[in-house]
């Protein structure tokens, strides 16, 4: 009786493993969605992609140990995704602020050039030619 139970259990083992494999594939897809969002927010996801691929490789190996390791790896990547996303938002905001500040500075310089540019140019022109004499041809 015990032997039969053991045999049944052994026969079920690959099925359980295959089920776990499918579950982990679904988790990998969820993690990918989170990575996509982080990337859209401007985050650098290259490291996360490497680790997600490592998890997928472990899932494909179908070994129990590897599946457990893949599960841990996927959770780690998922946890890091929100940090990368936050960093991305911060970086994007900073780059927009930088551009805004550059455009404001250029605008102010433009106004100054428009108002005082000619006077400054002529003053410099005259200063450079101080002492010159104009002769009648």
């Amino acid at each position: 009786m015990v032997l039969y139970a053991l045999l049944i259990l052994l026969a079920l083992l690959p099925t359980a493993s295959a089920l776990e494999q499918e579950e982990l594939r679904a988790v990998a897809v969820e993690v990918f969605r989170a990575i996509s969002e982080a990337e859209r927010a401007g985050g650098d996801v290259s490291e996360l992609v490497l680790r997600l691929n490592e998890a997928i490789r472990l899932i494909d190996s179908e070994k129990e140990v590897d599946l457990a390791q893949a599960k841990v790896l996927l959770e780690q990547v998922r946890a890091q995704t929100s940090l990368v996303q936050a960093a991305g938002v911060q970086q994007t905001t900073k780059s927009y602020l930088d551009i805004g500040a550059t455009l404001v500075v250029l605008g102010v310089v433009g106004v100054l050039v428009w108002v005082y540019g000619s006077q400054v140019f002529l003053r410099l022109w005259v200063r450079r030619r101080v002492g010159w004499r104009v002769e009648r041809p």
Partner: protein
Amino acid sequence: MIEEEVKAVALVIIGLMGAVAVYPVLEASRVVEPFSELGVLGPYMKIGDYPRELVVGEEFNLYLYVGNHEGTTQYYRVLVKLGDQSMNVSNTMPLDAPVVAQYDVVLSNEFNSTIPITLSVGKAGLNQRLVFELYKYDVDSGGFVYHQRWNQLWLNVTSTR
């Protein structure tokens, strides 16, 4: 007159500086022609030396090449299907045949991957068709969609050598 010219030249220079500052940011996320690549390489990682004659259950090695030029990170799935010459496959319609293997890979933009694979065919037959189809995960629909890329190998599989 000179005053007007000086103003105009200065403003053009300032305008150019503004364009130089803004252009890289606007252009960074723009991809002119997004596309993906799928290739099947022979056992020596080259285009060629593909198996043609096999025995049932005989294992053979190939390499899958997948490339991402879509502009963003992509989750690809390659399905390997076994069919025959009576079945159709095209850029719009995947092969209606059983899946014999599946390979997943996630690629950043402008990255590619070459995946070693080992396959075998479980039934004898002439002109069997091993089709490799590329699927891409679509974030909006929440599923893998056929990405209009496919390759095939024609195989003659015998029960004994």
